[in-house]
């Protein structure tokens, strides 16, 4: 017995190697399967960059042009691949520039590990050069964070970071590493984190809760599903499909749930929410059982809570107990991982169909088509519409492209009109509404899935918030297709000004630069379309390009996005004009 103990110890000693903290950071990332990370060097993180230089055959560091770009690129990487995105920055401004991306990842449950350099530990708290309390600053917008001041703590901190970022409801974590910890030596041995005793990532699914849900659904006359990103994060696309098809339930999606179930499926009734489809919004207040799956009843989805689905029994499937009864009181809560809970639900459901109920959706869709959709995608007026651009992209991509949208009118149009045949294809900033998200996120998405067509749909406002990332696209030869829908306005704010502020267009009109020249300045092939008869050919050319391509489409300046649930109104008050 004694001998064995000694042998074990020896084994550990042999496995451990004496390396610096910075090398331990890189080796830990490699051990976690990281192949690409996004970041920007600086004083306090330089030792890690020196180590990255030595390991560049194993791990590819992408130099973005701004740390915010690094965070969003890591998000795009994570969203399309389901893997953890990694961003790195130096202390002080480098770290604070990551914050918007971290906050975005927090509210959209995106697994992210951010590594920041920090000043020497003996300088902490002394207002040293580029010192900022990034652990304090990032606390409200991270799932977890920590500061490491000793080299020997690095492997365990990174292992814990990856485990927490990815497990349960995913989210961003931040590991802040002082410079002395990076340069000091440690005996390196990497062990993946398998659990944290105070943390229950996935609550157990109760069979009784599933049975109660199934009973409500089996007896429902007008059931309706609203699914969210929880289906994608739980890799439960197949299980969702089984539930929808077996019980014949009309199913709608939140913006982040898009693409988990094909848009072309007859039971897919469209998007809910402020600019979602007419039928699912309106009929939310007609259904008898509302089945919410991996969504969180965001205010943009529910409108006024006092008149949201009051007539319905509500069933809520979620991995996060804190979401249950947070915004909407539910009758049955089914906790757990969506893959497991939906499989259990499917088993307990009766085969069924609800043709008359489904027809109500189709009838309302016909109204929406006549009054809104047809004008958007088959316009007869002179000016180009955003909707017809999306239609053209659908035709050329066969609905197989990943659409990365920014924030605003074009985002709503992209989510409303893009065809989604493939899961993880709608990459957009949902919860935080971060303008500037799309260009860097598209870089991350394309690099994570080089075989997929990645099309960024961006407005002229958001494009200029991270336009510097064209440099990253150029340097990395990332074959991202960039479509700027230019209405020379901050369109969504302008729309609100028109509807609610008597057309007082305060600071929403934009005098824009020559975007084609800027793209060409980065040696990116570029084209501008101002007339309808050029559009089809231009989109064809863009989609056929093997390299990155910039397409600017001048669209009608004062088009509005409809349907719309005005802020504070009920879902049943959704307006078509």
């Amino acid at each position: 017995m004694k001998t064995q103990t000694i042998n074990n110890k020896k084994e550990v000693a042999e496995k451990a190697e004496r390396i610096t903290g910075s090398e331990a950071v890189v080796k830990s990332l490699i051990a976690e399967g990281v192949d690409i990370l996004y970041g920007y060097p600086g004083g306090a993180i330089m030792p890690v960059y020196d180590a990255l230089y030595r390991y560049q055959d194993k791990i590819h560091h992408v130099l973005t042009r701004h740390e915010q770009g690094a965070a969003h690129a890591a998000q795009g990487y994570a969203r399309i691949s389901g893997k953890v995105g990694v961003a790195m920055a130096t202390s002080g401004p480098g770290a604070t520039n990551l914050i918007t991306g971290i906050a975005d990842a927090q509210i959209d449950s995106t697994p992210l590990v951010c590594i920041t350099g920090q000043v020497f530990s003996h300088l902490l708290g002394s207002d040293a050069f580029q010192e900022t309390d990034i652990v304090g600053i990032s606390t409200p917008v991270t799932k977890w964070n920590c500061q490491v001041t000793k080299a020997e703590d690095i492997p365990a901190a990174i292992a814990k970071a990856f485990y927490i970022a990815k497990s349960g409801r995913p989210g961003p974590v931040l590991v802040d590493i002082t410079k002395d910890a990076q340069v000091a030596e440690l005996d390196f041995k990497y062990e993946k984190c398998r659990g944290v005793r105070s943390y229950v990532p996935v609550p157990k699914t109760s069979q009784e809760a599933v049975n109660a849900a199934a009973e409500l659904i089996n007896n429902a006359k007008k059931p309706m599903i609203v699914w969210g990103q929880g289906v994608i994060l739980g890799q439960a696309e197949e299980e969702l499909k089984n539930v929808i098809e077996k019980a014949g339930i009309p199913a709608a999606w939140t913006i982040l749930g898009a693409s988990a179930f094909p848009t072309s499926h007859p039971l897919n009734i469209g998007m809910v929410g402020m600019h979602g489809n007419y039928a699912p919004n309106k009929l939310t207040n007609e259904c008898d059982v509302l089945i919410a799956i991996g969504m969180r009843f965001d205010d943009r989805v529910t409108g006024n809570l006092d008149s949201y689905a009051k007539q319905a029994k509500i069933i809520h499937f979620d991995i996060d107990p804190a979401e249950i009864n947070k915004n909407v009181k539910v009758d049955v809560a089914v906790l757990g991982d969506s893959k497991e809970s939906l499989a259990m639900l499917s088993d307990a459901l009766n085969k069924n169909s609800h043709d008359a109920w489904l027809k109500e959706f189709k009838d309302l869709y016909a109204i929406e088509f006549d009054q809104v959709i047809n004008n958007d995608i088959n316009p007869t007026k002179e000016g180009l519409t955003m909707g017809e651009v999306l239609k053209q992209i659908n035709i050329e991509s066969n609905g197989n492209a990943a659409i990365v949208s920014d924030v605003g009118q074009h985002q709503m149009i992209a989510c409303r009109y893009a065809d989604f045949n493939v899961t993880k294809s709608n990459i957009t900033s949902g919860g935080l509404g971060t303008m500037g998200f799309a260009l860097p996120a598209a870089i991350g998405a394309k690099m994570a899935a080089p075989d997929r067509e990645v099309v960024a749909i961006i407005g002229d406002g958001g494009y200029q918030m991270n336009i510097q990332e064209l440099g990253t696209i150029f340097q990395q030869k990332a074959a991202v297709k960039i479509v700027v829908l230019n209405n020379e306005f901050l369109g969504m704010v302008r729309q609100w000004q028109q509807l609610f502020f008597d057309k007082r267009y305060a600071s929403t009109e934009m005098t824009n630069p020559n975007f084609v020249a800027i793209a060409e300045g980065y040696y990116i092939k570029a084209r501008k379309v101002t007339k309808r008869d050029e559009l089809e050919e231009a989109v064809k050319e863009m989609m056929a390009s093997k390299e990155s391509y910039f397409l600017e489409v001048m669209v009608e300046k004062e088009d509005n996005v409809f349907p719309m649930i005005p802020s504070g109104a009920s879902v049943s008050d959704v307006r078509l004009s």
Partner: protein
Amino acid sequence: MSEDIQSFTISIYTENNIGLLNRISAIFQRRHINIESLTTSQSEIDGVNRFVIVVNICEDTACKIVKQIEKQVETIKAYYHTEDETIFTESCMFKINSDLLFNEPQIQNIIKESYSRIVTVNKDFFVLEKSGRRNEIEALRRDLNSFGIMQFVRSGRIAVTKDEMKVSELLKAFDNQ
């Protein structure tokens, strides 16, 4: 669930972590909830800390907040209880001029009747300590105030609950996984 605002005691079992206090207080701050008192200490379990936080909110909010606290990675378990469901106390200290102790016979009576305790006496001042309910402490402060108080300090509420909080079982279950 009652919509009435009432006093809730929130008990949180946590790992000992530097940033956790920030994380927990941020949950109250976001909802504009004033923390009436906050105490942290070692709990009955080695290496596990316990927060006792008192807030005046409605039960619905208490329920949501406890879940958001529990969601923090380093929180082991969180509970909320009404006043009736807990045994609670506060403690306080008074620093008073020593002359009063010898010259004001009333002071001796106040000390006796309030069941407070003299911690230390020297020629300049003496220190009185008392634990009990808020109203008892307030009454004592009022009584002493007329004679002059050099310093007064009161602690946050500490509370134990009448029902069981099965934290050890939770930790055991994790270890056996």
